[in-house]
């Protein structure tokens, strides 16, 4: 028996004889490091992504355009006197960069002013859907059981409505298409997606040990929900919201194009595309320029969403 064990004492003495392990870095006095949270990590990561830099520059320009269109053009397209029917469908020139539309109005000025409605619709609808869908998803996911079942079934009813058809229907009920009704129609149809994502994230976060631990240390429901679960579940909602923003902008254009969204004389890219369509073969500019702005804007928000998703997901790093 004793002959089978010589190896053991040898390793044991080796372990004892070896020098004590060096002090862990955390015990070093004066150890100060900037705290690295999920958000500051993400921000650090984002600043180094070309995708993020490009999209945020584009978005910044668009937002300035929406807030102060007069910085970009001296013509006010809301003033009908700037349009001259005699110059209708004039090709681009030095004075009118994008040419003139069917009514002889400056396409460049209209495109710049059209940014406002697109951006307002995009941002407002995104915030509303994120808040409504997020809050309901948080409640459903946290409460579980019957509450969750009822809320989820109701959400599925909304899910079943095809989006453009649903929006057409809602706008038909209101009879007037304006910024408010368009935003309402889009929000009504879009919140279920946010709801589902939030609910799923909350259910995942709810079963995490730190939530159970917080409960064991006396945190109440409200505190658990908003302090412990929400910050850990909100990431996917933010990512989807960023991507949705672009979708809302194009959906607004689609509804306006179909004639149920924003109406003339309000200017939006969808309205411009719609107005230019009948004479597209004669003058492509009035349709292509706002369409290009629309595409670039949607692209910018989707790129931003991608960059944010990558930055917030540690597994993709």
């Amino acid at each position, binding site marked *: *028996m*004793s002959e*089978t*064990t010589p190896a*053991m004492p040898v390793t044991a003495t080796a372990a004892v004889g070896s020098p004590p392990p060096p002090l*862990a870095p*955390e*015990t*070093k*006095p*004066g*150890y*100060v*490091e900037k*705290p*690295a*949270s*999920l*958000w500051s990590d993400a921000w650090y990561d984002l600043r180094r992504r070309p995708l993020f830099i490009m999209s945020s520059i584009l978005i910044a320009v668009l937002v300035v355009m929406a807030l102060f269109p007069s910085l970009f053009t001296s013509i006010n397209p809301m003033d009908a006197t700037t349009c001259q029917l005699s110059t209708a469908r004039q090709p681009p020139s030095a004075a009118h960069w994008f040419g003139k539309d069917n009514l002889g109005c400056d396409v460049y000025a209209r495109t710049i002013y059209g940014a406002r409605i697109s951006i307002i619709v995009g941002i407002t609808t995104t915030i509303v859907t994120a808040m409504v869908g997020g809050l309901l998803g948080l409640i459903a996911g946290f409460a579980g059981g019957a509450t969750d079942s009822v809320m989820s079934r109701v959400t599925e009813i909304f899910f079943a409505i095809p989006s453009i058809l649903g929006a057409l229907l809602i706008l038909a009920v209101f009879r007037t298409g304006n910024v408010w009704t368009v935003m309402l129609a889009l929000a009504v149809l879009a919140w279920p997606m946010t709801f589902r994502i939030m609910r799923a994230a909350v259910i995942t976060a709810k079963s*995490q*040990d*730190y939530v*159970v*631990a*917080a*409960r*064991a*240390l*006396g*945190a*109440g429901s409200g*505190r658990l929900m908003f*302090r*412990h679960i929400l*910050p*850990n579940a909100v990431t996917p909602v933010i990512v989807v919201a960023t991507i949705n923003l672009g979708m809302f902008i194009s959906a607004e254009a689609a509804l306006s194009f179909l004639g149920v969204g924003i109406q003339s004389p309000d200017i939006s890219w969808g309205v411009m595309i719609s107005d230019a369509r009948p004479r597209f073969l004669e003058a492509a500019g009035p349709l292509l320029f706002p369409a290009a702005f629309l595409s670039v804007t949607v692209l910018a928000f989707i790129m931003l969403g991608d960059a944010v998703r990558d930055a917030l997901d540690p597994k993709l790093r």
Partner: protein
Amino acid sequence: MMTTHTDVLPTEGGLGNTPLLAVDNLHVEFSTRQGVVKAVNGVSYDLYQGETLAVLGESGSGKSVTAQAIMGILDMPPARIPHGEIRFRGTDMLKLTDEARSQIRGQRIAMIFQDALSALNPVFTVGWQIGEMFRVHRGMSKRDAQKKAIELMDRVRIPAAKQRVHDYPHQFSGGMRQRIMIAMSIALDPEVLIADEPTTALDVTVQAQIMELLAELQRESNMGLILITHDLGVVADVADKIAVMYGGRIVEKALVHDVYRTPAHPYSKGLLDSIPRVDLKGQELYAIKGLPPNLLAMPPGCAFNPRCPYRQDNCVSEAPPLYEISHTRSSACHYWREVLDGSHE
């Protein structure tokens, strides 16, 4: 002969007083698709002030579920408590309203979890999380809570607490994280602290430090400590009493030295024999044969009978009650005398 030294009273607090915490005939069931799982079947134990009770058992023995029932953090449904009482200073907590219960939770009875990394919220600094206890329950200002957090981090011996209070959980080592978890749980000076496998996720040297810290904190504040573990080695130095659980029942209750010296249940004996020992080096390590019982299909009679070397015919037909051997000691084995005699050799 074995009863002479076991007659001493457990610790201060004594047997005459009401226990700080008394679990009495507790049953916990879970309804699952496959049927009702009886996770805890009539568990009783007492905890006195200043006392450390080790609850020992393998996974699925019901030790953690009992603790969760005490804390009131079982998800009900699927869990259900059909019988039993959990008395805290004489009041049955199972009869209290949720409101009253949450007043106790965290403030008077607190809990430490096994894996401190997942038990700490990843998106907040540790200072914020420790301070939360004071802000929520004591209405302290942010600044005062922060100060308290640093004090507590010093108390659980986290070096450079003042700087580290702004760090996030993932920036700490495993042992330090467990210290933070401990700091949170003792923040409001609880009367009972339940530590659910506090050292399982840590390496051996750190395990010893954490146990030492827990023992020290307990001495300072005289709280009752329930130490849940599957590791006999961890509890030997710190525990006063031990309750060994198997298949949702307590199979042996005793003072810790008695169990170590002379186990009175074949399962505790098996656990002790399967600890590697220096003097038996080179010999094959003992292992308890067979598998833990399936809680959906418990064996008839004594739950341990399929694995028991002392098994007789009546072990299959009749479940043994908890036989009182002395007033500090009991064993749920028909043949505890034989087991005791066997362990004297």
